[in-house]
């Protein structure tokens, strides 16, 4: 249960971060009152944008300078639509950064698994494999050696191997998923 809790931790943290940020106090730049005024007589349409509080968000406060003379102000303002909007730029920033960093890590890990690891493994195990059989050389499928490692890691048992064992177990699982989705097409076709 503890291990599961630990694995859930990142998710919970992300959750707390996002929820907390959503409720955070608004940055001063994060509110706007946007008035869209359609064409009126010989004045073309215009968009006014001002950083005011919600109760001041109306045409009279935001439209400055007023393009029409005094008597027409009311008619002009009736056509304008003012909307008060707020956002949280911190949330956006943090979200994008979190997203990009997860994506980056995944990409790095993917590159490691598909390109680097097979080379490393071959270099490390080169001798012993030459003696055995060259059956699985030239196999570029990521995780191809998962079974080997599983078999070996079961014979020894210490903490480090347990981690490796868990990782290999995951790799096997993915391998099976890949087989059933892409090769056998039994699910999700």
């Amino acid at each position: 249960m503890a291990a599961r809790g630990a694995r859930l931790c990142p998710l919970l943290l992300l959750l707390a971060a996002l929820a907390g940020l959503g409720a955070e106090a608004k940055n001063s730049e994060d509110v706007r009152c946007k008035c869209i005024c359609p064409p009126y007589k010989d004045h073309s349409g215009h968009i006014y944008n001002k950083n005011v509080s919600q109760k001041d968000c109306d045409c009279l406060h935001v439209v400055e300078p007023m393009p029409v003379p005094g008597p027409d102000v009311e008619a002009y303002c009736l056509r304008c639509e003012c909307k008060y909007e707020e956002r949280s730029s911190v949330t956006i920033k943090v979200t994008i950064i979190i997203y990009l960093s997860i994506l980056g890590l995944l990409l790095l890990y993917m590159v490691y698994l598909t390109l680097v690891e097979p080379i490393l493994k071959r270099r490390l195990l080169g001798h012993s494999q030459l003696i055995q059989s060259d059956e699985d050389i030239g196999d570029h499928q990521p995780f191809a050696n998962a079974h080997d490692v599983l078999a070996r890691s079961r014979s020894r048992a210490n903490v480090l191997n347990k981690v490796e064992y868990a990782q290999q177990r995951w790799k096997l699982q993915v391998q099976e998923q890949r087989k059933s989705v892409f090769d056998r097409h039994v699910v999700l076709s």
Partner: protein
Amino acid sequence: MESEQLFHRGYYRNSYNSITSASSDEELLDGAGVIMDFQTSEDDNLLDGDASIGTHYTMTNGGNINSSTHLLDLLDEPIPGVGTYDDFHTIDWVREKCKDRERHRRINSKKKESAWEMTKSLYDAWSGWLVVTLTGLASGALAGLIDIAADWMTDLKEGICLSALWFNHEQCCWGSNETTFEERDKCPQWKTWAELIIGQAEGPGSYIMNYIMYIFWALSFAFLAVSLVKVFAPYACGSGIPEIKTILSGFIIRGYLGKWTLMIKTITLVLAVASGLSLGKEGPLVHVACCCGNIFSYLFPKYSTNEAKKREVLSAASAAGVSVAFGAPIGGVLFSLEEVSYYFPLKTLWRSFFAALVAAFVLRSINPFGNSRLVLFYVEYHTPWYLFELLPFILLGVFGGLWGAFFIRANIAWCRRRKSTKFGKYPVLEVIIVAAITAVIAFPNPYTRLNTSELIKELFTDCGPLESSSLCDYRNDMNASKIVDDIPDRPAGTGVYSAIWQLCLALIFKIIMTVFTFGIKVPSGLFIPSMAIGAIAGRIVGIAVEQLAYYHHDWFIFKEWCEVGADCITPGLYAMVGAAACLGGVTRMTVSLVVIVFELTGGLEYIVPLMAAVMTSKWVGDAFGREGIYEAHIRLNGYPFLDAKEEFTHTTLAADVMRPRRSDPPLAVLTQDNMTVEDIETLINETSYNGFPVIMSKESQRLVGFALRRDLTIAIESARKKQEGIVGSSRVCFAQHTPSLPAESPRPLKLRSILDMSPFTVTDHTPMEIVVDIFRKLGLRQCLVTHNGIVLGIITKKNILEHLEQLKQHVEPLAPPWHYNKKRYPPSYGPDGKPRPRLHNVQLKPIAEEREETEEEVHLLNSTTL
């Protein structure tokens, strides 16, 4: 029950008899055996990271009256692993529910003992609400993340915000005063790629540069998405709703709702949406929410150890998913009820309601779109509609139904092609090609270049005086001095006509691309493209009706309502009705769809037009084929899903469906007390059935109970390891009292604890109508057929599905042979092409088995890479 196995074996043959004659031993009794080679229990132990191996559960069948059984079980150590399920197997709802009640009783009886036990029981009672709260929180937060990231990445295709890289186009120009009425999205902070690379903002050079960058980004996003899916979590592809439907009906797909699937689906969903492919994020969000539900249910023993209870959480989670996808909490609950859930008691309804509420609340407080709404295309109308408009609405319904029928046929045909031919071997290439074609064609047309959600928003929005898009380029008389809300119908300007042309092209493009996009190996939802198609069609119809009413306001239908200068047609409303109709045609949902769309608009007065359109589209769609896209995909993949919506109208009897058939070898049974461990092991090795009826003796043939194969193997294995004196010649005893044995014989093995003492039975003359009903309503996995208390045979869910399929073939011989997919990976065949001995399907001798497995894995891998 097991996916591929389910349908391919021989019942595309036409006659009933040929099946009987061709049946192999695998078929006669629950061929649902261990079929895929990775289902051997050894592999399974390795693979099921999510399996609840450590469950301690004695199967006493809930309200067992026999108290002495209880005692016996308490004496025996419960065997870990008994009562769990293999991958790709079906759960037994009845058994799971009994298990839960038993557990509940145990906790309740201990409650009075101490304060600690009291706390534990309180925790247990509250865990249901806790888990849905957590699920709601997580799905709301993830939906916010997906929304924000997808918006940003979509805009990355066209340019970048130099002042703050993390802002999308809209946010970049948030405080800018340089935006003009005509070009609202231009501001100096936002740079297009052409401006950055070649320094020009206008002209053909910049157009080509932007075009190239658009294609480049689209391709790289699509490539990243598909390779992440392929390397880390293949289960993350597709929409996920067919699989979730199947899982909720009681199927086990290990890892489908796991952590990696969740992470990869979230990450790649953003990439897939941003790549501009014709897909949406709504369906996958349901899958994401279900993953959250599944992961959080592991925190609570009440849910982690019980598959049926877990499915209640998943029902609630799918409601939360739709709630955040459309900003429609009630719609989400109804979606869960109408579309995905199989077993939906009131308690689950309330929990779904709560989960949907929490999720919507979280998303709202994140406010991803900056419009204080949960979705981008929220609209508000206040104009009324008139009776004559029902006619165009119904026409839109017809269009929606036709589109739905066409889409289902075309998409299923394409997916079957992918499934059964070599073409399915190149998932990455396929995604790249589809993305390239989409990007190349989409860029020149402003309506397809837009993000699909934005397109829908634009189509839904009514043309007020504030709009400046070409869709709203009506010829105005400037001196009209009416107030904003009441704009009369106006003649269309040139902008509207060119917009209609572009919309027509966009419609054709979307229709074609969506057929090829749904089912590629990236997360892809269907709601948004369908809605876009409907919205485009609806908007075109709306503008047409509007112009008709303007130019012919003396026609008698228009006379009453559309006088000159009156505002009687709202094209945006037509777009919305069209979107609902198309979505209805594809998914065949009704109530939940109307509620979802109604929550999108917040206008009660449009319920009748929406209902009319959705109902028409369902009728028209049903005329061409009764199943929605999700059921069609379930059938295509051969998942064991017993649809509760279909009716069974035939007059067959249980005896006609049960296995074994007349010409088959007799039913494989166990006897209660005169079989040895060796006998049972041989029986298990020689057959592939998932369970064995236990009878009194060969002579009397009376039923005692039912023992599952998985439980048997686990129990025997653990007995051989842990108990002393258990050898091959030990007697196995299912009976309550051990029979008197000769003095020198080895100790008997008592297996009463794994015996299901109350298996479901029907008599051989029970009509299939009733049997099918029992299976649907109780969620049975198998049912024994008896005659005068003598076991005759067994009916499994798979047999029923086969039977239904057969009957369908008899009635509709013209139906396409959709299950005509060849078995390309004969799972029970070994590396040398010879049938693998049965021995390898079961793991009784772990070490030998493992080596065998390893060699085969390697071989399979080699053959796939070659």
